[in-house]
């Protein structure tokens, strides 16, 4: 899908875009990333201190964050692979549902590793349908995605009634399957726990966040980290990755250089389904008890897509997006409405920084808008006790809309993303 709709762009994929010369960067990308993480931690610690809500940076919140960010991250990786090869995949949700069913079935028959494998296969099958429809037959990618969401949900419901119903006597659920054993990095975990308990400003916050990341870690987390880093390496540092991305940027040019565009798109879309299915497996194995349940995905496929767009079609950004959405969800679970309310205060702090930055850059309108928003949020913070509970699950969606509204023009999607390509159409 074209995130930034450029009027007058030819729809044949032969868009000749003049890329402006890259801005001179003072800092390398990774440094910006590290500084960003540091700022977020400082913001959370300050908010936690000033509002007296230690749950904001507690290790249980962080543990939930990791658990809930995993499916989003994996779905987002699926989106990344497909869209980097120029195929929009809003069928991620349906593929994820097929993954949850596959994972529960595999888990029943062969333990957690089988669940992971079968979840991946379930999703990859959905991906294969999407690939056949969009690459071979050139069906509009959004249309095919919608159809796969319908189909995936239908297949999972049918198979669940057929196979799980006799076992669990509930057509909407599977019997519980075995989960992964979890690990904690000892003795760091206990040492960090001591630090966290002391409630010292800053140090305890960092200790809590770190401890959440290294306590109760399931192999699923490690798999996801490996896949994330692996995807970055494969897509950006191998010949295959370059070819795959060239299919998403300019398939005509890629084909003229001898790249088999169809093959690369097929691989990307099937892999995309596999990642989404893996996300479904993470969902099944991460729930307690570990079961398949109807409606379990709850739109996480779409959120994964949003996280990828939030991350500007890059793995690092995707991780940040998934982390943010996972945190919003995890905080709601482990702390509740009044603590999420404290995040408003954090948002005010961030907006305050934004005002200073805009003033420094002499952008008066931007500074004014940010200041207005900050004052507005602060007033809301002062005059309410908690956010309406009903809105909490939708925090990621609202954040996505705000980010898109503010930054859609800075995001850069693959140039030929969403455009149907037919072999030989460049001739």
């Amino acid at each position, binding site marked *: 899908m074209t995130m930034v709709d450029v009027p007058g762009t030819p729809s*044949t994929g032969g868009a000749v875009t003049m890329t402006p010369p890259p801005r001179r960067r003072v800092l390398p990308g990774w440094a910006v990333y590290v500084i960003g993480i540091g700022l977020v931690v400082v913001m959370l610690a300050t908010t936690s201190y000033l509002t007296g809500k230690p749950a904001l940076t507690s290790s249980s919140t962080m543990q939930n964050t990791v658990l809930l960010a995993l499916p989003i991250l994996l779905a987002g990786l699926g989106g990344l692979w497909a869209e980097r090869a120029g195929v929009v995949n809003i069928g991620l949700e349906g593929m994820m549902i097929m993954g949850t069913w596959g994972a529960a079935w595999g888990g029943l028959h062969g333990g957690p590793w089988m669940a992971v494998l079968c979840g991946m296969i379930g999703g990859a099958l959905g991906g294969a349908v999407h690939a056949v429809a969009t690459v071979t037959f050139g069906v*509009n990618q959004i249309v095919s995605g*919608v159809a796969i969401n319908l189909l995936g949900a239908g297949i999972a419901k049918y198979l669940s009634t057929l196979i799980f119903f006799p076992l669990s006597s509930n057509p909407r659920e599977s019997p519980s399957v075995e989960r992964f054993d979890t690990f904690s990095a000892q003795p760091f975990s206990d040492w960090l726990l001591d630090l966290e308990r002391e409630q010292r400003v800053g140090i305890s916050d960092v200790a809590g966040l770190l401890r959440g990341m290294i306590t109760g870690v399931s192999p699923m987390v490690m798999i996801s980290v490996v896949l994330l880093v692996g995807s970055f390496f494969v897509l950006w540092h191998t010949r295959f990755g370059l070819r795959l991305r060239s299919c998403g940027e300019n398939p005509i040019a890629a084909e003229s250089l001898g790249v088999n565009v169809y093959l690369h798109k097929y691989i990307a879309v099937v892999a995309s389904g596999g990642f989404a299915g893996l996300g479904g497996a993470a969902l099944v194995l991460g729930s307690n008890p570990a079961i398949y349940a109807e409606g379990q995905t709850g739109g996480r496929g779409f959120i994964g897509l949003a996280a990828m767009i939030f991350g500007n079609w890059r793995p690092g950004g995707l991780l940040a997006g998934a982390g943010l959405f996972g945190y919003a969800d995890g905080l709601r679970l482990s702390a509740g409405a009044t603590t999420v309310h404290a995040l408003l205060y954090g948002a005010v702090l961030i907006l305050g920084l934004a005002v200073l930055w805009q003033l420094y850059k002499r952008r008066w309108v931007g500074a004014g808008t940010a200041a207005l928003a900050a004052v507005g949020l602060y007033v809301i913070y002062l005059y309410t006790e908690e956010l309406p509970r009903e809105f909490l699950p939708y925090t990621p969606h609202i954040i996505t809309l705000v980010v898109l509204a503010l930054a859609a023009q800075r995001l850069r999607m693959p140039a030929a993303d969403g455009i149907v390509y037919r072999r030989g159409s460049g001739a």
Partner: protein
Amino acid sequence: MIARLRGTVVAPLLAIVFSALLCAVALIISGANPASAMAAMVRQVGQSTVAVDILNGAAVYYIAALAVAIGFQMNLFNIGVEGQYRIGAIIAAIVGGAFVLPPVLHALVIVIVAALAGAGWAALPAFLKVTRGVNEVISTIMMNAIAFGVAAWLMRRDNFGQLIGNNVTTKPIAESGWVPGLSLGSRGTIFGLVLLAVALGIGYGFLMNRTRFGFELRASGESPTAASAGGVNAKKMVVIAMLLSGAVAGLIAMPEILGRDHAYTLNFAQGYGLTGIAITLLGRNHPVGIAFGALLWAFLDKSALALDNVGVPREIALIMQGSIVISVVIAYEIVRRVELTAEQRRVGRQLGTAEAPAPATVTAGAPPPGPPDAAAPSDDRPDSGGRA
């Protein structure tokens, strides 16, 4: 004419047969008899109120599909119909329950409020698209989810929710706001607002094919560059199409609320928006095609209940619906390509039989006939080709 009919009728028929075969195979693998399943589904239509249920369901689906189709006509993917109809339904139910007006007027006000609320929920994605360049697909998906939150919040007991029996509903609409149906005794009652669906269908057909607005809308869908060169304001068209689509989406729940439930309840039906997208694809944005699609969908929905009696999980109907949609879109694409090749061959033959004119004069003198999309093979419209 006949050739066009062949293109538009054969493709969906083939797709339906293909999906039926696919489901038959699935049934055989799971150890059931597809023939008896099919027979049970057809028999079900004659049972108690099923036929009327199908008609009522189809009317609701029809409105949903029209809402989607308005956007599709100009390549605008309003995935947000789901959220827009939810917001339209709950706001209309709250407003309708708040006061009493003379009979016809009351219902009219409710319907108008529903349309306005639906359009209002579509306004933000439209605004973001034209001012900030945010793609409507992702923004409407987000708005769908947020609509659930807004509806849940409005239904809180300290807002507009009331506990009636063991169900939370909005304040019931007074009898003056009801729209009476056509009662067929034990066969059920046809919603009065089935007529609304028919009227919307006629209005849609007229708007798209007989007005300047419809022409500009379709032109912007066919080729944004050509349309803007012809003086069509693309941004204005996006906003109008989105708001119109949202307004129609707001009406989706009206037949059920004004004809049966008289309130918005917690177990309010969901998923009509997605269904609407699927049916629009089946009917290729054509008012009559959509009507057939809606009837087929409602038939599969309602008569699948009979499958439990013959020991087949009724969810097979969901697979059938999903596979019909995906095979229909593939079939349309194949037919379009076949027609395109045939067209090219025909033009080529005509050029060949002409008495050796200079190529330039031929192209200038006899521009190749056919739909404008014949010139853009890699265009990614959902509805390309075969349209009137």
